[in-house]
């Protein structure tokens, strides 16, 4: 967190405002040191992980007694091999597959969507669902949008189906997931002691602070919703530490400039109109109750799973193993760090990824590899 904290790019803070001020950062670290801590905090967001590793904050925090773990906060990574196989199966049947960039290179049981693209199947990267709808308007072929992402992304899918009047050949393969349910299940598994959660800022922009409250009550764990600048994260850690020291366990909001207590009501309403909660498996986790979203009745014509039920049945019946030796499950549950995987930086690199955590820019393995730390 040296030079970049003070100059150049650092001054780009939102509204020309500095959220990388070194003097404040030092003060926070000093306060944490005085607290004489020995705590472990989890965050559930790839962008938080990027900030932590890029600025070397994980080390600075470890020096003051705070260990940070990344949990299941990478939408690409928690997407299951079954869902990837569904998309590949539909590509093989001649559908046009559209999805966000990182999804393409995640290996299914063998190849990836990117490999299929090379073989001439119609697989395309889009930046937003708008682009996928545009593609559908210009073809008679069925265009499948593989809808991954947490609550940050799900409203754009809902709003498009509700107000965007997509053409009849546009279908969605629903893979959206909701974060608080996963946090609850993760704590319930009890695999590792956690003293606090840094809650994801942009997910919270949509859902607000209330969905986290039952978690703090149930497990007596402090939570702080945080933004993505280094100081946001340091302050979040400090706020958690204060709660921890005083025995409190509630949800605080560090990211007030964007997160309102009730979230984005308009986004929540359209999601609720179009989606209903369903149970869904996450990579590395068992089935998590109510953590998925499916299309409500009235939107069946857009539901790729319904429209292609006959074809997809064989995928649903398949037993799929995780790649041999890959510890993505453990990384996603926060019980292992990427370097603990025997394949890390050996068989598994960003050019030859074995698991999704090495593919995605939000994956724990990719981030550690990218910033060159602990490289073997």
């Amino acid at each position: 967190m040296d030079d970049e904290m003070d100059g150049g790019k650092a001054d780009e803070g939102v509204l020309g405002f500095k959220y990388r001020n070194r003097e404040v950062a030092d003060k926070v670290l000093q306060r944490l040191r005085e607290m004489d801590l020995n705590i472990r905090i989890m965050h559930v967001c790839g962008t938080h992980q990027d900030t932590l590793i890029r600025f070397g904050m994980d080390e600075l925090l470890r020096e003051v007694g705070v260990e940070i773990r990344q949990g299941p906060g990478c939408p690409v990574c928690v997407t299951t091999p079954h869902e990837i196989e569904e998309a590949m199966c539909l590509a093989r049947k001649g559908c046009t597959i559209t999805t966000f960039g990182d999804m393409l290179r995640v290996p299914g049981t063998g190849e990836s969507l990117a490999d299929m693209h090379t073989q001439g199947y119609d697989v395309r990267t889009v930046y937003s669902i708008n682009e996928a709808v545009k593609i559908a308007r210009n073809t008679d072929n069925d265009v499948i949008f593989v809808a991954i992402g947490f609550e940050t992304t799900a409203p754009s899918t809902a709003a498009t189906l509700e107000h965007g009047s997509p053409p009849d050949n546009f279908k969605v393969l629903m893979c959206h997931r909701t974060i608080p349910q996963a946090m609850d299940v993760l704590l319930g598994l009890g695999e590792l002691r956690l003293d606090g959660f840094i809650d994801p800022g942009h997910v919270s922009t949509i859902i607000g602070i209330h969905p986290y409250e039952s978690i703090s009550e149930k497990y007596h764990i402090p939570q702080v919703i945080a933004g993505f600048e280094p100081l946001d994260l340091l302050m979040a850690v400090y706020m958690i530490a204060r709660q921890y020291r005083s025995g409190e366990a509630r949800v605080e909001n560090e990211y007030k400039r964007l997160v309102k207590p009730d979230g984005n009501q308009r986004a929540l309403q359209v999601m609720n109109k179009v989606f209903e909660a369903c149970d869904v498996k996450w990579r590395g986790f068992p089935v998590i109750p109510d953590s998925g979203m499916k299309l409500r009745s009235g939107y069946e014509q857009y539901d790729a799973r319904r429209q292609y039920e006959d074809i997809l049945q064989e995928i649903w019946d398949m037993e799929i193993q995780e790649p041999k030796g890959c510890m993505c499950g453990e990384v996603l549950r926060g019980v292992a760090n990427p370097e603990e995987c025997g394949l890390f930086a050996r068989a598994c690199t960003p050019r030859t990824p074995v698991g999704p955590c090495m593919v995605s820019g939000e994956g724990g393995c990719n981030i550690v590899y990218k910033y060159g730390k602990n490289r073997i």
Partner: protein
Amino acid sequence: MCLAIPARVESVNGSMAKVDFGGTVQEVNISLVDAEPGDYVVVHAGFAIQVMDEKDALETLDLWRELLEHESVSIT
């Protein structure tokens, strides 16, 4: 993937708006927010997901400074 980037709204046309990401102007969907020209919005995957509260943004650092100045860590 949950990355969201601030941009300034330049002009609004129904559910779409032209927004400026520090020099690059793009069209984004603003149907999930109440945004007017001049507002800062945060954009994710082609959709504005929230309007930035300028007052809160400007006050945050001062509040932090104050907190750190005045708070003594005496809880044991």
